[in-house]
C-alpha cells in the first residue's frame, strides 16, 4: 500500500517580485502541482493523499482556487484526500460535501485506512496546543500515521510542535506541514517525523529540490522516500569573483562554477573582494547568462578591494583621502571600502557609481 504525503501547496500564493517576469508561469506551476500530484497517484495506484496543511495561501482563499481544489477532489472519487488545515488556511471550509475528503478538527480525529493502518490528525490552535499531546491515544498493534501542521520547536506555543512530547505514543509516521523544505527525523525507536516541504518554489527564499513523500506499507512495515517533483527548481549559487579582472572574467567564473540546468531558476550571488577598478553590472551579467537557464538573477555581494597601507606614504590627494576615510571610526569596514573605492574612482576620472 502506498500513500502520498504532501503539504504547503499555497494555492493562490503571490510570487516573489524578483521573479516578476515569470510570475504568471510560476503561479500556474504552483496551481498545476496539485493536478500533477493526483496524476502521479493515479499512475502509481495510490488511493490515499495526505495534505498536511497550508494547501491554500490564505485563510480565505480566492473562490477560483477553492473551486480548482475541490473540483479535482470531486473528479477523483477513487482517491481519498486527508486534508488537515494549516496556519495559512486554518479557517478554510468547503461549502459542499465531498465523500472522499476527510478533514480534521481541533480534537484528534482518526480514520482507518484498513484493519491495520490508522490515520489520525489534529489542527493545532491556541486552545489545544498544550493539551493535544496527552489526548493522543493510538493502538500499538496498528500502523499509526499522524498528521499535524506546525513548526518543530522545543517551546510549547501555538503552531509549534514539540517532537519530544510525541515520544512513546505509538506513532509510526508523523506527516508534517509548515516547513517548506523536506526534512525528517526520529521521534523514538518506533516512528519518525517528516516535513514533505512544498511542491513548487515561489521565490528565492524557497530554494532547492521540492516535492512530496511517498509512504509505503508492506507486510506491516512502513517506509518512505522523498520524490523530487517540482517542475522547476529555484537554486542559489555563490560565485567568488575575487580573481576576476573584467566582466568576461566574471562570466567565465560563473559558467565554471554553476552547472546550469535549462529548466531551472537561478540566483547567482557574486561574492569576494574585487579590485575597485573592476567595473561590471549585475543586469548585464544576467542578460549575458540568459539562455543558460529558465531565469537568472544576479546579485552583487562583493566588496571593493582597497589596501589602505598602500596610501600610508602617499602625499597626494588620493593618499590623504583614503587615510581620511580609514580614520573615520563611524564607518564599518565595508562602507570604508565602498567610500574609498568611489572616491578613488572619482579622482581617477572613472565612471562614478556604486553597484
Amino acid at each position, binding site marked *: 500500500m502506498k500513500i502520498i504525503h504532501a503539504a504547503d501547496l499555497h494555492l493562490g500564493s*503571490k*510570487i*516573489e*517580485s*524578483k521573479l*516578476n517576469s515569470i*510570475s504568471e508561469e510560476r503561479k500556474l506551476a504552483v496551481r498545476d502541482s496539485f493536478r500533477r500530484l493526483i496524476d502521479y497517484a493515479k499512475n502509481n495506484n495510490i488511493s490515499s493523499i495526505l495534505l498536511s496543511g497550508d494547501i491554500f495561501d490564505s485563510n*480565505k482563499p*480566492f*473562490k*477560483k482556487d477553492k473551486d480548482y481544489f475541490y473540483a479535482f477532489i470531486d473528479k477523483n472519487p477513487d482517491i481519498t484526500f486527508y486534508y488537515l488545515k494549516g496556519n495559512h488556511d486554518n*479557517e478554510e*471550509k468547503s*461549502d459542499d460535501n465531498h465523500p472522499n475528503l476527510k478533514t480534521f478538527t481541533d480534537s484528534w480525529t482518526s480514520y482507518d485506512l484498513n484493519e491495520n493502518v490508522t490515520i489520525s490528525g489534529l489542527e493545532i490552535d491556541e*486552545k*489545544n496546543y*498544550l*493539551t493535544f499531546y*496527552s*489526548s493522543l*491515544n*493510538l*493502538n*500499538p*498493534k496498528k500502523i499509526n500515521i499522524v498528521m499535524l501542521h506546525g513548526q518543530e520547536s522545543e517551546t510549547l506555543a501555538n503552531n509549534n510542535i514539540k517532537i519530544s512530547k510525541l515520544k512513546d505514543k*505509538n506513532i509510526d509516521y508523523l506527516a508534517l506541514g509548515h516547513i517548506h523544505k523536506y526534512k525528517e527525523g526520529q521521534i523514538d525507536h518506533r516512528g519518525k517525523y517528516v516535513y514533505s516541504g512544498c511542491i513548487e518554489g515561489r521565490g528565492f527564499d524557497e530554494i532547492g529540490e521540492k516535492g512530496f513523500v511517498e509512504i509505503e506499507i508492506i507486510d506491516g512495515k512502513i517506509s518512505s522516500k522523498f520524490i523530487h517533483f517540482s517542475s522547476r527548481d529555484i537554486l542559489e549559487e555563490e560565485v567568488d569573483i575575487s580573481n576576476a579582472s573584467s566582466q568576461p572574467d566574471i562570466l567565465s567564473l560563473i559558467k565554471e562554477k554553476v552547472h546550469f540546468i535549462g529548466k531551472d531558476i537561478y540566483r547567482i550571488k557574486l561574492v569576494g573582494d574585487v579590485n575597485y577598478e573592476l567595473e561590471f553590472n549585475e543586469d548585464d551579467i544576467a542578460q549575458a547568462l540568459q539562455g543558460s537557464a529558465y531565469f537568472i538573477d544576479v546579485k552583487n555581494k562583493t566588496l571593493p578591494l582597497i589596501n589602505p597601507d*598602500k596610501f*600610508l*606614504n*602617499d*602625499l*597626494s*590627494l*588620493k*593618499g*590623504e*583621502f583614503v*587615510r*581620511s*576615510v580609514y580614520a*573615520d571610526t563611524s*564607518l564599518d569596514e565595508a*562602507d570604508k571600502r*565602498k*567610500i574609498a573605492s*568611489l*572616491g578613488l574612482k*572619482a*579622482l*581617477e*576620472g572613472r565612471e*562614478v*557609481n*556604486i553597484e
Partner: protein
Amino acid sequence: MILKEIYITSFGNLENFKLDFSKDLNSFCFDNGYGKTTITYFIRAMFYGLAKSSKNQFIRRRVTPFNKTQFGGYLIFIDNGKTYKIERTFAKSNADDTLTVYVDGRESNELGDIPGLKLFNLNEESFNNTIFITPKDLTFSADGELKTKLGHYVDGEDETIGFDKALENLDKYRKTFVPDKEKDKNGLIANKKNQILDLESNQSQLKTFKDSLEEHKKRYDQLNNDVKKIQEELSKASSLNGLIKDWETYDRFQNNVNELKKNISDINASYPHGMPLDEQIENIKNKEKEKEEARSKLNNLELNDNEKEQLELLKNHFKESIPSEEEINSLKEKHDKYRILLNTKEDALTDKELALIAQFDNKNIDEELLKEDLSKYRELVSESFNNQSTNNNKKAKTKPIKEIVIASISSLFIIAGLISGILVHPLLFIPSGLGLLSLFFDAFIYLKNQINNKVDSSINNSSNSELQAKRNALFLKISATLEKAGYTILAENEIEEKYAKFVADVALYKEAKTRQNVVNEANLALKSNILITKKQLEAIYAKYHYDGTENDNYDQLNKDIALYKNYIERLKYIEENRNSLLAKLASINDDVSSFIKKYEIQNFDEFVLKLENDKTRLKVFENNLKQANAELDQFKKEHKLDDRPVVNETINIDELNNKNNELNKEIAQENQERGEIENNIISLENKLSFLDEYKEQLKTLNYRYNLVKNTISHLKKAEDSLKAKYIDPVKNSLITYINSLEETLGKKLGIDADFNLYYIEEGKQRDYRHLSDGILTLVLLSYKLAILDNIFSSDKPFIILDDIFAYLDTDNLEKAKRLLKKISNNKQILYFTCYTNRHIA
C-alpha cells in the same frame, strides 16, 4: 642628502658606467639616446627597486640589457653624516632581484626593503611626482587652467583629474539621488519614494477590497463565523479572559480525562460481568477441545456399515453358539493332529531292501543244496591244489622281482641323466644312455624266464584232466544256481566270493521281508487315522457353517472368533461408554453455554479477538488516563485554578441568527461580486508585490546616497587637510621663489589668495595669460621647488631635472640657467640635457 656617485654595471644600454656628483648643480649633457632617461630610471630603481606594477614592468623590460639575465649597479649618498651605498641586481622577475645596503662600509638593514620609503618618507609615486621633474611637469597648454596645474600638488597629472573635477563628478552623481533643486520631486530617491507612495495608495485600495472581501466571506461563513465572533467578543469582553482560557484549557485536560474514562467505561460496559480472564478463555477453549474429543470418541465407538455387515456374517456363523474354549482347544488339537498326520510320511522299504526282495522273491533257490555243492566243489579244488602246488611253487620262484628292481633303477638313471643333460651339461646325458642299456638287458632276462614257465605248465595239465572235469561240472552247477540269484561267476576263483555274497544277501533278504510286513501294517493305520480326523474336523466346521478346506476353515474360524469376540467386546464397551460420553458432552455444553450466555457471545473467535483488542485499548487508555490525570493536576496546580469564574453576560443568539439569515440572503449576489473583487485584489497584490522590493531599493538608494555624501565629505576633508599641510606653506614658499624671479625675469609676479598668478606691469596687476611660456615654465619649476621645500623642511634631497627647458627660447633659457645656479646654492641638482646649448657649464 647629497648624492655622491652612481655606478651602473649594466642597466639599459649603459654598462660599467659611473657618474660622480657635486653637492650643488650637476649638469650632464648626453647625446640623444645615450641613456639620459636610463640614468634617471636607475637612480629611482636604486631607491625603490622595480616592484611588481604595470609601470615598472614596462621599465624593467626597457632597461633589461640585451642577452643578459642580470643587471644593476650601485648608488652612494651621504645623509646625516653617514655614507650609504645601495647595491642592487635585477633579473627578469622581481622575485630574483637582490638588494644590499652598506652604511659606512658595513652591510646594514637600516633602510629596510624599500630605502626610498625610509629615506624620503614618500611612496614611489610621490617620489616621481616631487623629486623627479620632467618637461611634462612644467608645460602648460593654452586652454588649461594654471590654477588646476598648481592645485595638483604632488599628484601625477596622468593619474588624477584633480579635486575639483572629482568633486564635480561625485556631486553630479550625488544629485542623481537627490538633486539640489526640486529634491522632493526628482532624483532617484524621490522617484522611488513616489513609486512607493503610489503602491501604498494601492495598498489602501487593496485594504478596501480586502475589507470588502472579508465582509463577503464573513457573511458567507454564516453562523459559525458569527458565533465565533460572538464568542471572541465574549472572551475579549471578559476581564477574566486569561482565567477563562486557563479554565478552558483545564476543561480540555478534564475532557481528555473524561474521554479516557468514558473509553475505559465503554469498554468495561461492554463486559457487564467483567472481562473474562485469560484463564477463563483458555478454559473455554479447552472445553471446546474436550467436546471435540468426546464427540470424536463417540463417533469412533459406533460400528460402521462394513463392521456391521461383517458382524452380521459372524453372527450367522455363530448363531447356535460360539465355540467354547474347550471346543477351540479340541479343534486346535485335532487340527494340529490332522496337520501332523497329513505331514507324516508313510514308512517304506529301502531301495536295497526292495532290490533284495525283487532279487530273491520267487526264485526258489535251495540254499542247502547249494551249500552241499559248494562243499563238494571245495574238496575238488583242494585236490587240484595239491596236484598243482609244485607248479605253483615254480611259478612263485619265477616272480620277476629282480627285473623290476633293475628296471626301476635304469629308469631313474635315464630320467636323472636327461634332466642333468638339459639343465647342467650335455655330458650328463651319459647316465641316461647307461640307464637305457640296462633297461634293455633287464627286459631280455624277463622274457626268457616266461618262456620257460609255459613249457612246465603244459606237462602238469595232462595229468589232472579227470579231476578237472568233475570240478568243472560242479563249478557250472554252482555258477548256474548263483546266476539264477543274480550272481554271475566268470572264473572259478570268484565262487567263494560270490557265494559269500549270496549268503549275506539272503540273510538281508529275509530281514527285508520281515520289515515289509511291518511297514504295510503301519501305513494302513496312518491312512485310517487321517480319514477319521478329517471327518471329525469337517463335523466341527459344518457346525459353524464353514465349507472351505480344513486349513482355510481353521484359520478363518479362529480369525472370526477373535473378531466376533472383539465386536462383542466393543458392543459391550459402546454400551458401557456411550452414556458417560453423552454425559460429559452435556456437561461441557452446559459450561460453554453458560459462559457464552454470560458474556452474550455470538461468535466465540470474534469475541476473543475483540476481547484482546479491548484489553490492549484498555491498557493504552489506562496508561494515558494516568498521564492525563497527572497533567490535569499539574496544570491546575501550576495555574492555581481554585474557583471557576462566573460569566454573567448573556449571549443573544437569536439576534445573531437573524443577522446571519439576513446576510445569507445577500450571499448569492455577493458571491458574484466576490470574483470581481478577488481579481482586483490579485491585480493590486501583483503590483504591491513590488512594495517590499521598492522599499528595499529605497533603502539601498539612501544607503548609496549617504555613501556618496560621505565620499564627498571625506574628499573635501582630504583636500582641506592637504591644503592645511601643503598648500598655504607651498604658496608662501612659491611667493618667495617668484619674488626672487623678479631679478632674473625683470617682472614682478604675484599670487592672490585664490592661487591665481598675476604680474605687475606699469603698476597694474595683469592676468598671467599674457606671460610667455618660458616664464610660466619657470613659475611651475618654482612651484615644484616650493612643494619640495615644504615636504622636506630640514634635510632636503636632491632633485632630478630631466631636460626641463626644452621649450624655452634662448632668452628664457639663460634666465632659467641663472635660476638653477641660484637655487643650487642650497640644493643638489642633477640636471640632464641632450643639447649643449641647454647644458649649464
